[in-house]
């Protein structure tokens, strides 16, 4: 599956409190969580990010809490994919379980600036910066993990396989 959108660049160690601040953790509705996604980190993001946009971050994205509210908020904001140099492990797990596509690539993160148009092909691991025309290779997501994402997350995937 391919994802295309405008890049929103973030730094290292973007933690789950930055993605969705603690005071909103008693909220479970995705649309409500999306309204506060990254609001302390970059207030412009909440107002201006469009459906399909892509988050591009340095190392250890999603560190901190195990809150699934974080990938839920990002997904509900309409973000189609997150590219980072590395992800914190619980976030990595949660993102797949929630059906939020994520991919690791040092080169792509270094070769994409804020506002660039980016396309990600999860199946073959190719990331293209449409603004500069440069392409980057990341480790592709194995087919069974890709299926979880395509089905919309782990539980939907399980339910589908059971039916």
């Amino acid at each position: 599956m391919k994802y295309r959108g405008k890049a929103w660049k973030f730094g290292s160690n973007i933690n789950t409190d930055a993605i969705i601040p603690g005071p909103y953790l008693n909220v479970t509705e995705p649309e409500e969580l999306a309204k506060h996604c990254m609001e302390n980190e970059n207030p412009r993001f909440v107002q201006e990010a469009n459906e399909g946009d892509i988050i591009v971050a340095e190392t250890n994205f999603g560190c901190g809490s195990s809150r699934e509210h974080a990938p839920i908020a990002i997904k509900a904001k309409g973000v189609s994919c997150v590219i980072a140099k590395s992800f914190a492990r619980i976030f990595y797990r949660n993102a797949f379980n929630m059906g939020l596509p994520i991919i690791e690539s040092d080169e792509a993160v270094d070769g994409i600036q804020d506002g660039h148009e980016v396309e990600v092909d999860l199946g073959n691991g190719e990331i293209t910066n449409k603004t500069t025309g440069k392409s980057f290779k990341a480790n592709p997501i194995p087919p069974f993990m890709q299926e979880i994402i395509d089905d919309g997350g782990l539980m939907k995937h399980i339910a589908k396989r059971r039916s």
Partner: protein
Amino acid sequence: MPMTITEKILAKHAGLKEVTPGQLINARVDIALGNDVTAPIAIDEFKKAGGTRVFDRERVVMIPDHFAPNKDIQSAANCKALREFAREQDLTHYYEVGQMGIEHALLPEQGIVVPGDLVIGADSHTCTYGALGAFSTGVGSTDLAAAMMTGELWFKVPETIKLIYRGKLGPWVGGKDLILYTIGQMGVDGALYMAMEFTGNAVDSLPMDGRFTMANMAIEAGAKNGIFPPDRITEQYVKGRARREYVFYTSDPGARCKEVREFDVSAVEPQVAFPPLPSNTKGVSEVGTVTIDQAVIGSCTNGRLNDLREAARVLKGRKVSPDVRLIIIPATPSIYRQALKEKLFDIFLDAGSVISPPTCGPCMGAHMGILAKGERAIATTNRNFTGRMGHPESEVYLSNPAIAAASAVLGRIGSPEELDRKE
């Protein structure tokens, strides 16, 4: 092949003779834990996937501790969802306000988690139970839902980073300082995806409360789990508490480690982590002048009895600065009662602090001590991320309980020794 303690526990629970780092395994879960933030989502997912009964009513644990006692109507609804599910499933380990304590203090105290266990919890600080010599790790709500249904979960066997602490601890230096110092050296992703194994003569003599503090913050170095080899101190702690049989696993000599780091702790002074990361550490003597508006002593990191005793030793006969609110949060009802019996509450109240019921409360900005714009707090909690305790322009500094107590009296970050010198 020689194995680490982490590998042995994972192999045992996967029904395998041995496992190697990187291997994907499906393993049996001894305890699956959820709280009022993560369990409502898990319960929803459990039902949506057609779940009717949990795999074992004695092994699914639900604790309403984050926004409880109910902070507002939304929180009340979340706690109610937990309560109703616990009743419907007849869960043995649901703890109502009054019996409720902060999950990671309560579960070991009540003997619900034991050495040799494989524990998953939908809370990142689930790694705390590694102090008992258990494999314990944080997962998301969906993983919890899957474990609640099946009693199993998939894991990738982590590489191990072995940490060796040698030397004698200085005055007012404890588990919190060792772990902050370690994170300061390694960075917040220094142990990403790995198991941190804590060893060496300096931690061999560390009481359980200090070990819980260290294992608790393994996640702040990015680790999958933190673990201590169980010993005589572990045995004393679990004897009389454990509700199930326990097994002591230890690493074989020559077991593979990705990295070995040694620390001479004799030179380590009490640590303070500056915002916005737990790795921004300094020795307390190098802090400079940092005034504070609030001090918080509590949380799953430092809300245990020894932590309160340490704070009381500093506060005895002293007054909290008029510019500071000192909030003390005993982590469980039995810690609360014991602190009361030992007359620690008299010391706290005489000093002018407020004592909260057990709750995670201000640690993650939920309630019970939120910071306004521009305010600064010192806290014995585990994270000092931007906006963690309230307004995005407020600040959190992390320390041990003695430093937090001394700072509350001084009105700025400082040590008990500074107080002695001043007087």
